[in-house]
């Protein structure tokens, strides 16, 4: 397993290299120029010379291949450069937002999994009864209601019922947990609903399948308590496919919450993404794409390793 993990981590290098090439050159194909936006964005008149000077300062005048080479070398040194807009290091820019985004993602995952397992299990065990129909109704709602709209409903409800809105400034959880949670629990709920719906439906269908397996019949024939048949024999098998879904949803939440962050006025990765794209802030965009790509690859590896923990048939040897 160790060797397998090392292999997979080494395989990340070509994957990330591919991502780097794609993002670097695609950004430069798309029309738009940070210097133009920066200096002429407010309608001010700036001479062509000033613009050229600024381009030179940012290194944008050099041949593409040189720029790419420099970026690669810097990245190898774990130096992601400075934002072209704010001039602050990319790492600093991202770090400030990542904490918030990661916390929302983790909270949403916890909410989703805690709700999805009982919901999916109950729906499968009581298939065709009102319990099943309720769960199916609730989950179909989760799939079809956009998270940001659900978020708006949450906000409006809070406002009209309690005449209260969550704080809009981010306090790290280690500074003030109450302030932190009162701010972040709502977006976590908003995105967790959809998340929970996806996972619950996955658990329902895979549990239905597992309950028809021969080994469930064997367990019953042994006189195992029905509760134990479900928890020990069925659910553990049924959760395997859900792990994949959980992992994929989790990675999506990092950086994928553009509109929801807007609704809750959260300063997260999603917001930063939109900002940097609208400003053509090449270094920042590149840094964020690389971060999220690396995140994806890591989560996928973690899922595969988790599979091996849950399922003894899977052993990564080669």
């Amino acid at each position: 397993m160790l060797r397998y993990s090392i292999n997979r981590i080494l395989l990340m290098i070509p994957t990330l290299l591919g991502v780097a090439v794609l993002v670097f050159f695609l950004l430069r194909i798309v029309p738009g120029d940070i210097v133009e936006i920066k200096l002429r964005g407010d309608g001010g008149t700036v001479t062509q010379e000033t613009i050229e000077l600024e381009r030179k300062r940012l290194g944008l005048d050099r041949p593409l291949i040189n720029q790419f080479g420099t970026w690669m070398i810097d990245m190898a040194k774990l130096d992601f450069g400075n934002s072209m807009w704010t001039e602050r290091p990319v790492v600093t820019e991202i770090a400030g937002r990542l904490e918030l985004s990661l916390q929302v993602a983790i909270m949403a995952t916890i909410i989703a999994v805690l709700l999805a397992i009982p919901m999916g299990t109950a729906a499968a065990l009581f298939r065709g009864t009102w319990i099943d129909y309720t769960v199916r109704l609730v989950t179909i709602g989760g799939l079809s209601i956009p998270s940001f709209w659900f978020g708006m409903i949450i906000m409006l409800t809070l406002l009209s019922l309690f005449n209260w809105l969550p704080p809009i400034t981010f306090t790290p959880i280690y500074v003030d947990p109450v302030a932190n949670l009162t701010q972040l629990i709502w977006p976590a709920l908003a995105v967790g609903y959809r998340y929970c719906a996806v996972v619950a439906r996955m658990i329902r269908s895979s549990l239905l399948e597992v309950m028809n397996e021969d080994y469930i019949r064997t367990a019953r024939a042994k006189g195992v308590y029905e509760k134990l048949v479900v928890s020990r024999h069925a659910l553990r098998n049924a959760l395997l496919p859900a792990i994949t879904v959980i992992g994929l949803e989790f990675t999506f939440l990092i950086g994928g919450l553009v509109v929801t962050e807007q609704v809750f006025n959260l300063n997260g990765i999603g917001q930063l993404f939109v900002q940097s794209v609208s400003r053509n802030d090449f270094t920042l965009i590149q840094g964020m794409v690389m971060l999220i790509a690396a995140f994806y690859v890591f989560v996928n590896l973690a899922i595969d390793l988790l599979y091996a923990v849950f399922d003894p048939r899977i052993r990564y040897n080669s």
Partner: protein
Amino acid sequence: MTVVDADKDVRGPSAAQQEVAAPLLQVEDLHTQFHTSRGIVRAVEGVSFSVDRGEVVAIVGESGSGKSVTALSIMRLLPRLTGKIPQGRVMFDGRNLLDLDDDEMREIRGRDISMIFQEPMTSLNPILTIGLQIKEPLQIHLGMNDEQAKARAIELLNLVGITDPERRLDQYPHQFSGGMRQRVMIAIGLACNPKLIIADEPTTALDVTIQAQILELMKNLSRKLNIALVIITHNLGVVARYADRVIVMYAARVAEQGPAEQLFHKPRHPYTMGLLRSVPRLDRPRGSKLETIEGLPPNLANVTTACRFAPRCPFRIAVCDQEPPLYPTDTGSLSRCHRHAEIAEGKIVWASLGGAGLNFAANTEAPVLSVQHLTKHFAVSGGLRSAGGTVRAVEDVSFDIFPGETLGLVGESGCGKTTVGRLILRLEEPSAGEIHFEGVNLSTASAAELKAMRRKVQVIFQDPYSSLNPRMTVGQIIGEPLHVYKIVSGRKENEARVTELLGHVGLRPEMAERYPHQLSGGQRQRVGIARALAMEPSFIVCDEAVSALDVSIQGQIINLLEELQRKFRLAFLFIAHDLAVVRHISARVVVMYFGRVMEIADRDVIYSESLHPYTKVLLDAAPVPDPTLEKLREPRLIKGELPSHLAPPSGCVFNTRCPMASQECREVVPPLEEKRPGHFAACIKV
């Protein structure tokens, strides 16, 4: 023995007797129904039988006859939403199981009644250790702590013949072979010293040598521990070898039941008679044609009040429009046939089908297919600890097949017989060796020659359920190759040819409009045969072509294959694991083990005068449907299992399991030698 009929008490014992010898299990007038969206399927109707302590009772029947449902009804393991038991009693040890609440029933399952299922590959939970799965009933029913349960689990594994039990307790099911998993299932079944074990097709998925091991084990344990055994099977040989009493089921009802000896030698129901005749027999030379029961079992969703077997029964008379009760007969068995007395008087006998036998005159023609030193190795990538290696799936196999001849290829799973078939079909590239088809060496053949060969070499697969495209009609399935190879021009001609082909395989032309799921297993296999015939082949590989079919249907398909062989002068390579079927259909037989040919001889020679110890063991392991014969012969059990393909034995591949093996066998690879004219064997001891 106590037998109570649904309709009347046939030989009801007095109350006093009943107290002394109350049967362990008494099923009375059991009805089981499945409520499906397409209506009510009456899967079991009015089944009554009893099982005494320590007795071995077999329930036989074809698929859909209700034998498995009967077992699941006793255990109350029917699907919750659809399965219903509207009527009947299941008396077990003085209690009616159908009256118990769920928790009382759960306490009986696994403690007093255990069940062993057909598929050892899927019946154990893949993500739990064997140890946990064996300990579970001990902890639940007997309240053992972990230590005690572990000690008992080790004891159980020893009992069922699993070596190194302590280490194996921590392993998972996928680390066990099929036979070993079935032993684990038996260990679980025995865990709480049950009074009754119900085994549903316990050996159907296993090889014949492993089947013999498992059944001997079950029989010995049940004798030793005085456990009653109900074996559900379709294999009449297994019944003959192991059962004290037999219940024959047909279309949800008991057709006949009685002591095994009587039932096999003096059947009193036409279905039993027909069934016994349609089994190919290992112990008898081949008749000209296999006897069959024509037609199909009725659809249980709409049955009439007539005798259920009447539509297929050659002896039906007017009274057969009324469902017969179970009549007691002269032999002490019960028969659901109005004419049982006439059967007893010998007035009713199944007419032999007769027909011209296949003529196996010595072949002087050039062989249609010649295989020389065929070898196939698969590379296996290495793992963390293993260095990887080569699986020698097929090693130095040579044989000829002549026009119009059937060559049987038998062996257990993993012996390479299917790979040989795939190599001949060019679905795999051989690692070494040559295949000549009609004189053309296929490894050096041109593309055009290969294309021609692909037309003339066809295949019939095992599984008629998955080898036909479910989204194509029968007509499209058969017509597709005609179109692709431009054998016919135009739609009209294609349709005409499809109709003709359907006729050849005994299907009506309107079948062309149907989809595979609308056909029965036998009909699907006929479609598979028609598809193969469409190409006008001269050679067909039949890969386990009848293994998935019921006995009475199997006979029909074998007869069809033989008829087509005569008509079109086809050569067959008949790959199978069933020795009796191979004996019936083949002119010559090749026995393979672990990728190598062990013996080649004429059909009757290989069965009566086999030379190779493996062939002998294989023949011994296969039970014949005759209880008297089975009682006389002491089965010679082959020890052990197939060795690992990654670490093949040195010398003779069979030496690890051979009763005759000596030091020399571990050193020399025995060549395939002509020991007698036309009789080849690869053994230095004979």
